[in-house]
């Protein structure tokens, strides 16, 4: 019985029951996998096993005997997300030696992350994830397009999915999606709209209203056309003020400096300031308390183009965001690590919010789904949008199947409701598909859907 495997049950061992560990448990258990979680702190294990149908084990996840007890020999996947990078790498190394499982490690120190590719190859890891770096990249993408609330990239950065709020008196309000399509010189597609807390996957006759939040997909070049056509002002960010000198701040500063944006970092710890100033010679490093109103004013929060609080405390980040929104017109991005009181946070209308724990979890969930059902296609990326109600999934089409080679309009009848084929990437060329286009082998296809848990592209059909 124990060895019999349900259709979608992988045996997964997770080491580390922190933020990311527990988010992973939540999402992977929801997808029906057999999960064993290991942590050295009994209290954390207790809390998780009380709430989720998983097995808990107290001990050191890098130790051979603990891994054996967790059943590493039968495991399909090992995910190491403890506090320490070294421990994560060791866990994966031991796991790979003992079992035949794939291994994923979280590595976030800049020293190692530069070598992540090397580590991945040499240690035979399936995935090396760096949530801090991904957080920074996401923040940088938003800062490159400040009008957007969220920017996620697909097709190796060729296409992007942009989330926008429609302000009052914007010309797009009141237009139907068909009219929008006609107005645009190049194609862009509105994939999802949130109105009064409800999410729609809209059809052509759907009419937008002021106050809606919409997500559209377009090739990278055409995004500005869309924004300009419908009067979404987007001014460039030239300087950014970052509070907190964490790893994510470092990665973000690096990205921004690379793009030619001036960066100012306020950090409390003197030694960390020294380190940062060595690592980031072009940035202005300020030693001081980022929650000090006078200091923020002195450093020009009122005039800054962008303001990114990246402290380790969510409450501080939220307060700083609210303060910045009040006294300046800067574009603000809020980082939230622990997601409690979701409804309260949402009602604050913070604007752009980044959840590092979800970024990590999404990358791993995408990998797990792909590994579980890798037949004719595999999952390249996975994003959750609108509070997990909508999934955007990018599939790579490896083989012919019942969905390939046919014009989309022929399949339309059989396609699931609340599902949209948003874009097709053919050899680096982005196609926003119409009914005449078809899916071919070698394409990557991006699907936006409310049917959570898709594992294979063929599931778009009923």
């Amino acid at each position, binding site marked *: *019985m*124990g060895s019999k495997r349900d259709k979608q049950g992988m*045996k997964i061992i997770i080491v580390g029951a922190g933020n990311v560990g527990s988010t992973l448990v939540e999402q992977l258990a929801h997808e029906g996998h*057999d999960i064993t979680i290991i942590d050295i702190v*009994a209290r954390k294990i207790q809390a998780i*096993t009380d*709430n989720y*149908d*998983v*097995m808990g084990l107290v001990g050191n996840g890098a130790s051979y005997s603990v891994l054996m007890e967790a059943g590493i020999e039968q495991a399909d996947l090992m995910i190491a997300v403890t506090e320490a990078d070294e421990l994560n790498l060791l866990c994966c190394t031991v796991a790979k030696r003992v079992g035949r499982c794939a291994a994923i490690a979280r590595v976030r120190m800049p020293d190692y992350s530069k070598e992540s590719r090397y580590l991945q190859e040499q240690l035979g890891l399936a995935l090396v994830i760096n949530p801090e770096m991904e957080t920074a990249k996401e923040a940088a993408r938003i800062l490159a397009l400040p009008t957007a609330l969220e920017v996620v990239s697909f097709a190796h950065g060729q296409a992007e999915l942009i989330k926008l709020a429609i302000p009052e008196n914007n010309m797009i309000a009141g237009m139907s999606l068909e009219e929008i399509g006609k107005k645009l010189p190049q194609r862009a597609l509105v994939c999802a709209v949130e109105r009064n807390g409800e999410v729609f996957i809209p059809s052509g006759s759907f009419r937008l209203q002021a106050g809606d939040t919409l997500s559209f997909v377009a090739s990278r070049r055409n995004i500005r056309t869309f924004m300009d056509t419908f009067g979404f002002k987007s001014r460039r960010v030239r300087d950014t003020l970052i509070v907190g000198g964490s790893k994510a701040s470092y990665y973000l500063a690096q990205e921004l400096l690379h793009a030619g944006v001036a960066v100012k970092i306020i950090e409390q710890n003197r030694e960390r300031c020294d380190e940062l100033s060595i690592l980031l010679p072009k940035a202005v490093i300020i030693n001081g308390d980022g929650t000090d109103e006078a200091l923020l004013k002195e450093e020009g929060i009122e005039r800054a183009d962008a303001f990114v609080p990246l402290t380790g405390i969510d409450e501080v980040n939220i307060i700083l965001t609210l303060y910045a929104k009040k006294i300046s017109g800067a574009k603000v991005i809020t980082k939230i690590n622990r997601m409690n009181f979701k409804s309260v946070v949402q009602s604050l209308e913070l604007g752009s919010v980044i959840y590092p724990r979800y970024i990590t979890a999404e990358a791993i969930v995408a990998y797990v789904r792909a590994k579980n059902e890798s037949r004719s296609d595999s999952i390249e990326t996975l994003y959750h949008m609108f509070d997990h109600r909508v999934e955007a999934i990018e599939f790579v089409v490896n083989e012919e199947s019942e969905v390939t080679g046919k014009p989309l309009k022929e399949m339309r009848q059989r396609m699931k409701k609340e599902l949209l084929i948003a874009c097709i990437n053919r050899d680096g060329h982005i196609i926003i598909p119409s009914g005449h286009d078809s899916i071919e082998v070698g394409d990557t296809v991006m699907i936006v859907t409310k049917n959570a848990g898709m594992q294979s592209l063929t599931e778009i059909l009923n």
Partner: protein
Amino acid sequence: MNNAMIGYILGSVLKIEGILLLGPCAAALWFKENVGWYYLCVAAFCILCGWLLTRRKPEDQVFYLKEGCVATALSWLALSFFGGLPMYISGQIPGFIDSMFEAASGFTTTGATILGDVEHLARTTLLWRSMTHWIGGMGILVFLLAIVPLSGGSNMNIMRAESPGPSVGKLVPKVRHTARILYLIYIGLTVIEMILLYCGGMSFFESVNHAMATAGTGGFGVRNDSLASYTPYLQWVVTIFMILFGVNFNAYYFIIFRQFRKAFGMEEVRYYLLIVIMAIGLVFFCVRPMYASSSDGIRHAAFQVSSIMSTTGFSTVDFDLWPQTARTIMVLLMFIGACAGSTAGGMKVSRIVIAAKTVKKELAAYLHPKSIKKIRFEGKPVEHEVVRSINVYIITYAVVFAVSVFFVSFNNCNLETNVTAVAATINNVGPGLAMVGPTLNYGHFSMFTKCVLIFDMIAGRLELFPLLMLFHPGIWKEAARSSKLQKVLHRDKNQA
């Protein structure tokens, strides 16, 4: 509190009981006995009630430990009620409380009976009595978990409330799979015993009954003299299986998956077997002069010891007639019980071992007041929380025991009867000493005493707290509050 979900679980349990009641109906058809109709009626009624309660799956399926406890306690009360109903309305057992007692004794795998003569009962009823043992042994809610998909991780709270032992572990990550594995082991062992009994010359009907009664460590027999009139081979088979069903089922899981070192390294199982062997040796030493040959002596000693230790309650001789030391050993074994994670009752070997280690640690603390030492069990340090819960368990156990003995004393029986009657029911053993000895029964007690003993049986099977929770006023207040809240929400919805 999630009342809707508790109702849903209760409904599912009733549905299962209704389906299980079809078992005796089939037997009635086979043996052409008319009492089958009564069973069929109750089965239909159970399924109807269950269907009414489970018509709508609640939207909010989250439930916590308190809901788990309440659902478990209510399910067991309902189980005993509906289990006793066919025996009452068919007239097989004339008194209402008596039939409730019989059903509760069956489901809690106690095996204490109020009947002096079981041989005149219809075979349908005999089969149902044995079936109640088998169902109650592993637990009906564990069965529910194995077959009904309940989403969310909180279903561990049901398992925790129903499974015996100080801490409940899973064999595999999912509760559902764990429950299935346990049931498969359970069914497997039962079938093996049945085949061995049948091969030994027992009739098919009797081997089915005895196999089920042993598996649940229950103790209802089909003959008035329990197992005394069977051949030595059959008595040995039952002896060995009684010991086996008292072993923590995790050990079997490890054996199936060829992790022999883990299976034989289980501290609790080792202590359990050690106690069994030592007790057999001592009892044999005491009763040797009473029997013609050593082989008879050892057989009777082994049978009685494993029967009491595993809290089954079968007997081959009247151990009430044994020397005082042997009788005392019997009573002490009742309290120890078998392993956690088995189908047996009692305080459980693991609790006793941890408690003994706590005492040892306390003594060491007198010697070196500042020394720090963690208690280890099964090779792992025991969390403070577990030690604390065991201490509280033992205290609560003592209190419930004392109060019950007081209530039972109203019958004006002697102290030995009162104490062993409570000990035999709260530990789910069955026979006690003196007026509740192996050859006698509980029929002579008053209605009130029987109710007290029903309470003891269910409290003992659920390990006190889930049942005691029902007596906590906070639970009822909360249930009332949330039902009021639900009504308001419902009204608001309708208005909207």
